């Protein structure tokens, strides 16, 4: 029994001369909330489409719950999917749309539809047909469909687009509840990085079809930890000065004679003065610290909109 819910190996998608996804390697473990981060056109949706079978990979392999190839088809029934804008029959009501899919998927119990409508706050939509729904209601119906079969793995592509602030908070709480109470594994792609930072336990960064990095939220937090970064001519002697004059060992030495000091964050002038007085040849000093957005932007090499 594997704990890996999703793994891709060399996943590639080419449209003519355009390489949409280039040998992407993803690994999502059971119980994770995996945030897939990338700009528009980075390849996030294409990856999700390949996982859901909407498009065939040009090359590479997808493993879902440990199964590959033709066995994938059956295991997709254990997933709940919301890719791009939720799509339903415009002339049917929320209940009729969900009932149609409930019958099609062989999900037992007519109460299932009522339950998910209740969970997604759509129980009182009555005879209103889908085409008259607001964007937020459409998003919630999309989520209702994704949840109807009590999935083990949720794949959500930009799920909070169109939700109002209150809806975003409710949505976040619902996902956290599903993850904690039902151990539902979640892969979520979003542009709204601060929101993703509230949810994800692991991140995958993608740009121009290439997976740049996969990192756990804990490691990311560590990497983004606020510090004073100094570059000196001799890191060893500078470290000695810090210990003797400031009485701290809360620092680390990086290659290139760089020191990262995690205390005295609000006193960079003091640090600078102590180092100079202690005889350390100071080349540069700066306060550092990043959030998810900064980290992503630094990774893709510039200030661009995520």
């Amino acid at each position, binding site marked *: 029994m594997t704990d890996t819910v999703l793994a891709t190996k060399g996943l590639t998608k080419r449209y003519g001369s355009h390489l949409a996804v280039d040998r992407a390697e993803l690994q999502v473990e059971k119980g994770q909330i995996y945030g897939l981060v990338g700009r528009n056109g980075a390849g996030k949706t294409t990856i999700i489409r390949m996982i859901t079978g909407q498009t065939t990979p040009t090359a590479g392999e997808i493993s879902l719950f440990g199964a590959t190839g033709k066995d994938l088809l059956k295991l997709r029934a254990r997933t709940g999917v919301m890719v791009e804008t939720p799509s339903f*029959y415009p002339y049917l009501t929320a209940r009729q749309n969900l009932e149609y*899919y409930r*019958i*099609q998927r062989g999900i037992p119990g007519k109460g299932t539809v009522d339950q998910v409508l209740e969970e997604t706050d759509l129980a009182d939509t009555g005879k209103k047909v889908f085409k008259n729904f607001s964007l937020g209601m459409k998003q919630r119906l999309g989520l209702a*469909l994704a949840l109807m*079969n009590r999935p083990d793995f949720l794949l959500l592509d930009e799920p909070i687009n169109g939700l109002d602030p209150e809806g975003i908070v409710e949505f976040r709480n619902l996902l956290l509840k599903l993850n904690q109470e039902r151990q539902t594994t979640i892969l979520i792609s979003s542009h709204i990085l601060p929101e993703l930072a509230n949810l994800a336990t692991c991140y995958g960064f993608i740009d121009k079809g290439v997976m740049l990095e996969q990192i756990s939220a804990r490691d990311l937090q560590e990497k983004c930890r606020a510090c004073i970064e100094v570059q000196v001519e001799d890191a060893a002697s500078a470290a000695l000065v810090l210990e003797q004059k400031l009485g701290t060992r809360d620092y680390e030495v990086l290659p290139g004679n760089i020191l990262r000091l995690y205390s005295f964050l609000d006193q960079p002038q003091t640090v600078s003065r102590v180092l100079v007085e202690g005889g350390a040849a100071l080349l540069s000093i700066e306060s550092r610290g990043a959030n998810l957005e900064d980290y992503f932007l630094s990774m893709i090499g510039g200030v661009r909109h995520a």
Partner: protein
Amino acid sequence: MRNYLAAECYKVFHRKYFYLAMLVVLALEGLIVWGCWFTWSNGNTTMDFYSAAVTMVMLMSIGLYATIITGDMVFSEQYKYNTMKNEVAYGVPRWRIYLGKLAVATLVALVAAVVMAVFYIGGCWLLLPHSESDGEALNAIGYTLAGSLPLWLGAQGLVLACYFLVRNTTLAAFVAVALLGVLPPVLQLCGLLINPVFETIRQFMPAVMLESLRNYAFQWDYVGQCWIVGLVLLVGSTAVGMIVFQKKEIR
């Protein structure tokens, strides 16, 4: 597959499209029946059940084009509304999606055909005078239906393939009309101008065979030919449609 068929039936019978289409067709039929009755009640003694019922034989070609409507009812503009992704992403096999829709479209077409036939024949039976020729009329209808059914079935397969393969529903309907209705006269022209083989091919076009059924009254060999052509069209178009749909990108 049973779940898929049940869901498609749920969708078709929970929207107004089917009922409105039936209402329009039955209203038109009612108009014809009323016209026959009006003619008879105004002293035209040649109008009776036989002559009214035999008119139905002339209307069989309409069934060929009605498959465009039944196909649309079931396919429900899935590409326009992007609803196909909900099925594929859940792991419903594409062959099941294709065959399920074909089966339900055929079922809907049959239900509609039975309702229309019963309504028309029943109306004529109730309103018009009867004669010794009544049996002949019913035999003629039975014969024509026996030859028409497989051709309708083949047309339904072709129409559904168009809906699956052409992303735009309106364009798909035009392609279907072109293949069913425009191709025969084009082949006829090619037969005259290029090579007589085109005229031979035209003779096996469903629209032409439906017209010819009347000229081959009670020749069961011809009905057999209709079955062969209808089934070849159904299997061929379904095979092509399914193969292409297997690889089609779903948005």
